[in-house]
């Protein structure tokens, strides 16, 4: 496996993992209390920015 393959594998893993969690969190919003909803949305925002940063890092390297 080349270094490029390894980087791509890591990208696939990170995006899958973070998006799976984002999707779960979005599902949870339906029954969340307003306070919980606020906290979840904040964490989801952070998560989305992480995904963006991971993609940018892969693209820029």
């Amino acid at each position, binding site marked *: 496996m080349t270094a490029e393959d390894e980087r791509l594998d890591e990208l696939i893993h990170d995006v899958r*993992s973070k998006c799976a969690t984002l999707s*779960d969190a979005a*599902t949870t919003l339906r029954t969340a209390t307003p306070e919980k909803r606020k906290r979840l949305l904040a964490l989801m925002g952070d*998560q989305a920015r992480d995904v963006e940063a991971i993609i940018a890092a892969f693209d820029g390297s």
Partner: protein
Amino acid sequence: MPNLSILVIEDDALARELMADELAGHSLDFAPDFAAAKRKLESSRPDLCFIDLKLGKGDDVSGLKLIPLAASRGAYPVVMSSNDSEPFVEKAYALGCRDFYSKGDVHGNVEAVLSRYRQRQGKGNDTSLFEADFVTVDPATQAAVGEALRYAPSDLPMLLLGPSGTGKTRLARIIHDRSGRRGQFVAINCASYTEDLLESELLGHRKGTFTDATEDRRGKLLLADQGTLFLDEIGAMSVRMQTKLLKAIEEKCFYPLGSEKPVTSSFRVISATLEPIPALIKSGKLRLDFFQRIHGLTVDLKPLSLRTGDIPPLIAAMTQGGRRLSFTAEAKELLLRHDWPGNVRELKKLVDLLAAGQEGRVTAETLAGLLDTLKSQEQPGGGFATEEQYRHALANGLAATIERVTESIIKRNLAENGGVKARVMDDLKIATRLLYKVLPGAAAPTDAKVGA
């Protein structure tokens, strides 16, 4: 489900938040990285441990290294990861993971894991365990057995202590059966072999290694590959053999006798002894490093005389599906008063004798006679004669003792048969002449028919 102690090892803050929701109501702890997880596992014993494999950016799936640690702490290791390709899944299970799910649908996955865990625990602690597999109503014994079974799925070595007949082999077998190991349960009693024979039994040998080695033979170590090796009476093993075995356990590799080719075998070791460990170490019979390698968890089984409450359920279990026995109040009292030097094994022998006897209703007299017989079998040399009989023979000659024993057996059988002499002759396969010699007060019959 009762409140569980759960450790979640997860670097993703959002995932931790979701896990906290799913596992609300349980005693939860979180570790965001490898170091914190290691620290927490080394200082606690969670029931379940959820492990993410990749812990942080650029991390080399360090979660894998935490699986055996979690298992060795008695936890049920669950991997939740997007590193779910076949090699990762295979490796995780090989390391001791009990459940693996791919990230996504956290609600459904956590619910399914808890359900499987509940089923597994149900099997591990179901009432059949203490009502059939290891019969005991004694809280301390139940706790000791329960603790041992908690570590059944791990590789943790175990040392079972307790007098002969307390159920050490049975417990070792139950631990193996509930370990999930695909290999065999292989037991060996170290006291049954000379040093050379034990070495050959454990390591195996090549054809021609010694005079009787007419063919290659696999040793117990190899037979126990992926399974459990139960070493009974470990104190009887020579120090030289302990050294060899220690090496084989640590390196998972050894040389059969006469072979220059190493053989690999990975097995879990459960040892047992009825001797006090400190004395064995102090006398040099047990190497300290060997002891340290085999005593991961020590389970102490109490003698039957200290858990007499177990006697009635044990008898009920031993006669299940066969002839049931009923004891008079005096007989029950005698059962509880007896010191049971042979423990459960002695009780089993007694029940077998009673079940094969004439009466289902057991009197104190019958019981006392059988307990005496069993006691005599525990004498040095496994003798059939009791100490009293032996002393009597020394003082009065063998013929006089045999005569007395004969009389005692005939009279007892006569009592058990309600005085029907024909049944006595039938039961004991004796002639009329002997019966009337022993019972001189009884009139000899005038014909061949002998009635009550």
